[in-house]
């Protein structure tokens, strides 16, 4: 600023002290300050200024000289007449508004009202700007010193007090504006720039803040809006289905946002949205979501992804909106899941009814349906719910809930995988296999009893390997890798050992062949042996020791010699449960009197008979399992046996024997090798069995399928469950000892919490179980109770 430089110069001058120098031309000329103004001059100046202001307000400023006015105002202030000047200014402005403008405005309380008011406002603001410019010096100096209202703000305040707050102008203004908005909502085109100007005016009238605008217009506007939409939303709901309602709401929101941006103050937009969201969405979201036939459940049922997406985006705006959605979705998902579970358990139908038992769903199908269900919901999650974590977590917890509701889920999941990995299924290519395994893993993660799954999976893998049913080693290994990644090495150790055993088999076989060749004459049949490391492979608790036919027993002994010779210090025993045999069978055909003959035979004991063959003898090769082989070989000794006799002779466990006999005598006609004489569905001790000489088949090689249940029977299940419980006891104890060793001393509750945490990846331990294990460990002196506090345990090294 120039006056800064001047101030510096002047202060420099005064420092130099004095001005006169020798040269005449350098004399400082100080013009005398203007003399004080006298009263008359002051009044004259004031009047002149006031007249000028009046002219400005009447828009007659063309002829005025700015410089003159400015200079006069400047002089007034300089001479300390600022106060007079200020008051005079205020008075003249006020006068003008009172006298002319107010009348105009009051006179036009009709459809010209808005235009009149707006133009009065705009003229006033223009005038005030000009006035402010003229009085700029006063603003800078006097107002600063006195801390009173600057000129422009002063003018605004006067307008507010003299015009807007008079004669119900503000009420009328409010009414006019709200009516216009209502018209526009009804579809009538309005001159909305009038509203824009009026709103800007109201905002400006607040000077420091938007208070005037808020009170005079915004609050009533919002209230109006709320009421309007309350009524509208009721109507929408009654007339429309959920998705149409959502669309309508979206339209309203976008319309209103448009409106707000077009002519309302910018801060109103958010408040407006708030109101809309509250009235249109929060109030009704529960109703919309629950709507029959068109709400959330229906949308999911009919796979209406776009509608779900709109609903999601709408409800996301309001607090708690998404919770309403997730609760409803959860209900729906759970109901489907529970139904699947009930179906597979046969709940709801009479279990003794044979038809119901058949309706009981196949476990493999059950798992497949669950996988499909998960896929379906993942698809919703991705396409409609934007991968929102609320939904993701809800879906997960729902799946966990009903999947674990079925106590047999671990077994079923294993069966599903077994089904896919078995030969004879549709050939899956690599990608399909990978994706199927991945999906199974997804379900696996939901299991809370992972150790149960481990048991079943081991059993099924063992079966597959031993019976050569696995479709591909690679696929098996893939699955094991996935399990390892998920659960750690401990889980898959045994499985990997099983594979190791399997890999040795072929070497073993060829070595054995060499050995046999070196010791000819011992073996009467072809034998192939598989050696399983004890403890690794899941076997029934007691491997039954059945009575082998002599030839078989010799063959086994032969192998035993070879093996123990080759591997010092090892012992092997034969397990007959999973072996298989090929038998050559001759069927002699039958005479017409076959029945009489057989009856005679029971009375008279075996005697040679002279059958009159009605047909040639049939030679067949039967592929059977070991137990079946054993029992069939009995019929070489005698033609007829009772069930009781067979039991005693072969030492095959009763249940197994029943199954074998059932498949041989009560199964498909193509498999009826034996004839059964007996009543009732189940095989009784007194039932008699004989060879069916009339057996015939187109095939030379016949495979006898056993009637097995894919899944376990009740007693088997109980056995497995017991084993699992046993294992759990050990795991809990191991965890307790581990924790106590590290912590030395711990409170009971803390210990329970820690144990649960450590084991949660395998199963959920019952606190009572933990307590019992603690007691047992105390008895065995692994830990003890602290003397002072019974609730605290201490580690005993």
């Amino acid at each position: 600023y120039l006056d800064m430089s001047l101030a510096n110069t002047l202060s420099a001058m005064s420092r130099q002290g004095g001005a006169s120098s020798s040269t005449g031309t350098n004399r400082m000329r100080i013009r005398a300050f203007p003399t004080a103004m006298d009263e008359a001059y002051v009044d004259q100046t004031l009047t002149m200024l006031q007249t000028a202001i009046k002219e400005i307000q009447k828009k007659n400023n063309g002829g005025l000289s700015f410089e003159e006015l400015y200079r006069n105002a400047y002089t007034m202030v300089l001479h300390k007449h600022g106060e007079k000047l200020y008051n005079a200014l205020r008075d003249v402005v006020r006068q003008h508004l009172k006298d002319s403008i107010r009348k105009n405005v009051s006179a036009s309380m009709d459809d010209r009202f808005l235009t009149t008011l707006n133009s009065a406002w705009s003229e006033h603001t223009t005038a005030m700007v000009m006035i402010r410019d003229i009085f700029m010096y006063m603003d800078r100096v006097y107002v600063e010193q006195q801390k009173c209202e600057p000129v422009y703000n002063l003018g605004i305040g006067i307008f507010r007090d003299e015009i807007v707050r008079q004669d119900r102008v503000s009420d009328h203004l409010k009414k006019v504006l709200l009516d216009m908005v209502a018209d526009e909502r009804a579809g009538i085109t309005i001159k909305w720039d009038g509203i824009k100007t009026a709103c800007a005016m109201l905002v400006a009238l607040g000077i420091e803040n938007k208070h005037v605008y808020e009170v005079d217009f915004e609050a009533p506007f919002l209230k109006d809006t709320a009421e309007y939409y309350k009524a509208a939303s009721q109507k929408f709901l009654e007339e429309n289905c959920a998705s149409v309602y959502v669309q309508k709401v979206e339209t309203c929101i976008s319309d209103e946002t448009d409106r707000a941006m077009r002519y309302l103050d910018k801060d109103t937009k958010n408040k407006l949205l708030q109101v809309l969201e509250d009235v249109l969405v929060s109030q009704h979201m529960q109703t919309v979501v629950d709507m029959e036939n068109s709400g959330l459940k229906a949308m999911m049922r009919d796979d209406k992804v776009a509608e779900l997406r709109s609903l999601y985006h709408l409800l996301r705006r309001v607090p708690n909106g998404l919770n309403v959605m997730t609760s409803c979705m959860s209900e729906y998902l759970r109901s489907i899941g529970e139904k699947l579970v009930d179906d597979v358990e046969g709940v709801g139908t009479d279990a003794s009814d044979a038809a119901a038992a058949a309706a009981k769903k196949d476990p493999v199908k059950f798992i497949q349906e669950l996988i499909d269900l998960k896929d379906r919901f993942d698809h919703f999650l991705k396409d409609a719910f934007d991968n929102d974590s609320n939904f993701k977590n809800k879906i997960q917890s729902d799946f966990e809930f009903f999947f674990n509701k079925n106590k047999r889920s671990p077994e079923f999941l294993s069966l599903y995988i077994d089904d896919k990995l078995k030969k004879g299924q549709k050939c899956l290519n690599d990608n399909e296999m990978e994706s199927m395994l991945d999906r199974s893993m997804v379900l696996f993660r939901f299991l809370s009893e992972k150790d149960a799954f481990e048991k079943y999976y081991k059993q099924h893998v063992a079966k597959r390997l031993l019976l050569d049913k696995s479709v591909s080693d690679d696929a098996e290994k893939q699955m094991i890798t996935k399990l390892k990644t998920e659960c750690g090495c401990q889980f898959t150790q045994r499985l990997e050992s099983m594979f190791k055993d399997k890999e040795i088999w072929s070497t073993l076989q060829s070595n054995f062949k060499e050995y046999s060749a070196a010791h000819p004459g011992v073996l009467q049949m072809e034998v192939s042996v598989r050696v399983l490391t004890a403890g690794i492979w899941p076997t029934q608790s007691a491997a039954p020791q059945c009575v082998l036919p002599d030839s078989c027993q010799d063959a086994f002994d032969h192998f035993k010699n070879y093996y123990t010779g080759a591997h010092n210090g090892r012992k092997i025993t034969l397990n007959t449960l999973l072996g298989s045999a090929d038998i050559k069978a001759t069927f002699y055909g039958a005479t017409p009197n076959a029945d009489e003959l057989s009856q005679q035979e029971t009375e008279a004991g075996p005697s040679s008979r002279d059958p009159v063959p009605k047909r040639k003898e049939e030679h067949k090769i039967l592929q059977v399992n070991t137990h079946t082989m054993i029992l069939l070989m009995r019929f070489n000794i005698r033609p007829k046996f009772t069930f009781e006799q067979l039991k005693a002779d072969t030492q095959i466990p009763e249940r197994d024997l029943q199954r074998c006999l059932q498949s041989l005598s009560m199964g498909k006609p193509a498999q009826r090798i034996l004839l059964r004489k007996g009543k009732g569905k189940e095989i009784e001790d007194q039932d008699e069995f004989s060879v069916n000489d009339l057996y015939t088949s187109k095939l030379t090689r016949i495979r006898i399928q056993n009637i097995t249940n894919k899944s376990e029977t009740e007693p088997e299940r109980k056995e497995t469950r017991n084993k699992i419980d046993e294992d759990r006891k050990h795991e809990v104890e191991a965890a307790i000892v581990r924790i106590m060793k590290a912590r030395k001393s711990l409170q009971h509750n803390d210990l329970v919490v820690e144990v649960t945490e450590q084991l949660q990846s395998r199963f959920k331990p019952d606190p009572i179980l933990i307590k019992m294990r603690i007691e047992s460990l105390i008895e065995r002196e692994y830990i003890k109770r602290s003397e002072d506090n019974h609730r605290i345990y201490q580690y005993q090294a």
Partner: protein
Amino acid sequence: QASINSCSGIMSSQGSEHGGLVGPDAQYVRLISSDGHEFIIKKELALTSGTIKAMLSGPGQYAENENNEVNFREIPSHVLQKVCQYFTYKVRYTNSATEIPEFQIAPEVALELLMAANFLDC
């Protein structure tokens, strides 16, 4: 007679109507001192003064805008001259990277110049 300053942007008055003086888009304005000396300077420079700025660019139409000239009844020519020089100095060196020289003010003129500066808000 005040000396004719050779600063750029200031032309001594010759009473001729330069093309840039007339009309609302005029580039030049005429500043007239109390003793009748006319300074024709670029409008852009004159706007350094807040007062002149309000006068010429404000919403109102005054006598000044009409003729693009301002009469300063209380500012003598030797002061007004210095003011114009200041305008040039200010515009030249505002936001400039080069070294800014001191604006020279003769002591005799200082006081009157101070008052003019106060008046003109610059």
